[in-house]
């Protein structure tokens, strides 16, 4: 059974804004799915719909086999949610906040204390556990929100911009924690972010959205082969011989390929890494002095921008 199933989902707000249009996707248990797009793309709306906080205008949803619109509280019992707007109580300490939510989730006080201690330690908040939340920095609040979402050991975790406001080290720790949760505990993670580089580090699968529409969905390998199949071969060389003629910007044949992008650095597009040995051999045979060879695969960002460019061209 899928952990999350979204079928032809659409949401139009009462003011007429179409936040989501015909989204279909499914998440298997233990998957870390990046739901990626700019601000206003519909990420938070999707999280709210998946938790029954909003009702869909069309299509259907299922989380752990339950309908969020009908049984939101049962879904909440098995899911953890971190969103920018889901804050905790300033008048309570970090630990008191966790104990409060643990109690709301029906966890016994002794068990709650153990879990809270473990999470506070893991998220590097143990020293601040007895301080009022009002004295916490944005990053500390964000980490405590993650601890709060994990206190009841959820099966599915909905994270909306979980690393916004975190310093690089904290963001790395949070990333590691999320990945570990998926790998060791089988937690399904639905991660919404506009930080594509961050998503590329931890997600096993990506859904790229813009203006409420799903542009593409798949693993990085699938997205690359579907959207940007070429990779860039970058060579640093002291002397670069002519490989079947000089670079011609108007020509994209295999032979006429290298472009000098900076002194001593040359680039060309290739379809597969199988082509690299032959190219390198050709350069060496013609007296080229190769210092380094790098095969640069398109990043998630490259894929996203390629997709949005295609969308723009299609709408013109």
């Amino acid at each position, binding site marked *: 059974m899928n952990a999350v199933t979204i079928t032809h989902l659409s949401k139009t707000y009462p003011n007429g804004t179409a936040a989501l249009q015909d989204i279909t996707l499914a998440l298997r248990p233990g998957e870390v799915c990046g739901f990626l797009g700019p601000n206003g793309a519909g990420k938070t709306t999707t999280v709210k719909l998946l938790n029954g*906080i*909003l009702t869909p205008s069309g299509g259907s949803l299922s989380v752990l086999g339950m309908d969020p619109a009908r049984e939101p509280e049962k879904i909440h019992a098995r899911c953890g949610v971190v*969103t920018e707007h889901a804050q905790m109580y300033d008048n309570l300490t970090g630990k008191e906040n966790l104990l409060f939510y643990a109690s709301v*989730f029906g966890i016994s006080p002794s068990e709650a204390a153990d879990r809270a201690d473990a999470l506070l330690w893991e998220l590097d908040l143990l020293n601040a556990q007895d301080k009022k939340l009002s004295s916490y920095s944005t990053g500390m609040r964000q980490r405590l929100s993650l601890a709060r979402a994990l206190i009841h050991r959820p099966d599915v975790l909905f994270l909306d911009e979980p690393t916004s406001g975190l310093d690089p080290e904290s963001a790395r720790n949070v990333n590691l924690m999320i990945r570990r949760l998926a790998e060791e505990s089988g937690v399904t993670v639905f991660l919404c972010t506009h930080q594509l580089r961050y998503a590329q580090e931890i997600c096993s699968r990506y859904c790229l959205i813009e203006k409420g529409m799903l542009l593409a969905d798949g693993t990085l390998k699938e997205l690359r082969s579907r959207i940007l199949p070429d990779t860039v071969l970058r060579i640093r060389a002291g002397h670069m011989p002519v490989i079947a003629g000089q670079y011609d910007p108007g020509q994209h044949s295999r032979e006429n390929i290298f472009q000098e992008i900076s002194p001593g650095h040359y680039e060309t597009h290739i379809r597969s890494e199988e082509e690299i040995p032959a190219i390198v051999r050709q350069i060496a045979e013609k007296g080229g002095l190769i210092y380094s060879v790098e095969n640069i695969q398109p990043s998630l960002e490259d894929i996203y921008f390629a997709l949005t460019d295609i969308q723009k061209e299609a709408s013109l």
Partner: protein
Amino acid sequence: MNQAVKTIIKKDIKGITSNRSLFLSLLIVPLVLTVLLPCIFLFAVHFVPDDPDIRKLLDLLPRSAWSSSPELTISGLILNYIMPVFFLIIPIMASSVMAASSFVGEKEKHTLETLLYSPLTLGQIFRAKVLASFLMSMAVSLASFLVMLLFMELEAFFLMGSLLPLSASWLILLCMLSPAVSLIAVTLIVRGSARAQSMEESQQAAVFLILPLVLLVVGQFTGVLLVSQWLLLVLSLACALLAWILLRRAAARYTYEMVLK
């Protein structure tokens, strides 16, 4: 009652008591109404010289309302006819402050959304918050009554040499009318919570309850309307019925989308 509901009630009450300025605002009005105001009344009765008009007024009263002295009779009237109307401001004010903090304050601070992601139904969250406001209001009202009674009786005893008789109106007031008006105040705050963006804004809804009370005060003072025990009982029943209807309507309207508007 569900343990989680109890946890929310405790947290909401702690939210008020740990906020010094909010808690002070919750205590100042009851202190003025139950300590300062009756003190002024009783001192005035004791130290102001005999007035023939007051004598005429006392003559109009039934014999059963008379005490051993005119001073004690007037003080008894103040305790049993004037103070109840002032006293009603306390449950209205306490439940308004508490409901505004519990419903609108949480919305303002974005903590309500977090609570919505808990395994409680929206109905349970609504009940927990209404109960927290109601219990706090009842606790403040009862404490205010006891403080008022203590001060007035001590004052009467030391100034006039006798304790004041307590009317059955107070029983109706504490057990029926105060709870009913508390709940009405809570429903008015909940109703306005969708539009209100701050606690202060939402508390303005309580003005609609204070206004009829002001008319009642004027009525009592001028003698136009003398609230008897029977009238108080009828009024209490009407308010209880209204509170029940308003609560049901507020609960039905309390949806996720309304809460996060």
